[in-house]
């Protein structure tokens, strides 16, 4: 019996084999969204836990990789939604090298705060599209939405960020 069929029928060894095959990729995807290695590890385990629980719904002829990425995106989204007001962006969030020195520390903090305060559905697509430069169709597949909706959410995220930054006293042109 094929690995995916064995997994779908509840074989723990098949699940372990799939876990070992895909854990790095799932982790790498999640860490790009949540930007915290510890949380990304926990969410990777949570993702595979959801995968294991939903194994009977998996079609063995389907694409496990895409399915896992979709579930990982949902797990990361749930985390963003629940952590929005509880914690800020991690302290060790990497700053871009060669950042414009004109952007002062205070301004950077304001941009981070504004970004963190975005609703989770906008923050998810904004992180992937604007910071990680992931193609829209990949984001759409992972989030289970259309490419058009991804574009709409990116546009709304940008508009909301601009508004928030203006409210925080930063002059960002409203175009």
């Amino acid at each position: 019996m094929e690995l995916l069929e064995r997994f779908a029928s509840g074989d723990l060894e098949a699940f372990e084999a799939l876990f070992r095959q895909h854990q790095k990729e799932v982790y790498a995807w999640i860490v790009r969204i949540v930007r915290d290695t510890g949380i990304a590890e926990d969410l990777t385990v949570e993702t595979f836990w959801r995968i294991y629980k939903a194994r009977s719904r998996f079609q063995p002829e389907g694409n496990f990789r895409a399915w896992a990425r979709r579930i990982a995106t949902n797990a990361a989204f749930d985390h963003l939604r629940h952590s929005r007001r509880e914690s800020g962006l991690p302290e060790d969030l990497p700053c871009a090298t060669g950042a414009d020195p004109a952007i002062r520390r205070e301004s950077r903090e304001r941009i981070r705060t504004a970004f963190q305060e975005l609703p989770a559905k906008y923050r998810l697509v904004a992180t992937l599209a604007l910071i990680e430069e992931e193609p829209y169709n990949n984001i759409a597949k992972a989030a289970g939405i259309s490419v058009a909706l991804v574009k709409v959410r990116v546009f709304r995220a940008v508009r909301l960020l601009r508004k928030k930054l203006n409210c925080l006293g930063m002059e960002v042109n409203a175009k």
Partner: protein
Amino acid sequence: MSREGNNKEMKDLLKQVIAPASDTELRRDLWPQMLRKLEEAPAPELHVPWFDWALAAILSAVLLFFPGSIPALLYHL
């Protein structure tokens, strides 16, 4: 300015503050953690939807108040 122009402007601003994740390498095997989670998970509860409970209640009431329907029910089983 176009939507793409607006996005690019914000993208440039954001990227000066938040860099793309550069370290996405998983440094340890998470299987032991996964195994712990599988072992700690409670046995799945038997979940009976409310509709099934309602159906069972209606059937019981019918059998109680109209015992004559029992042979008909058995016939249809």
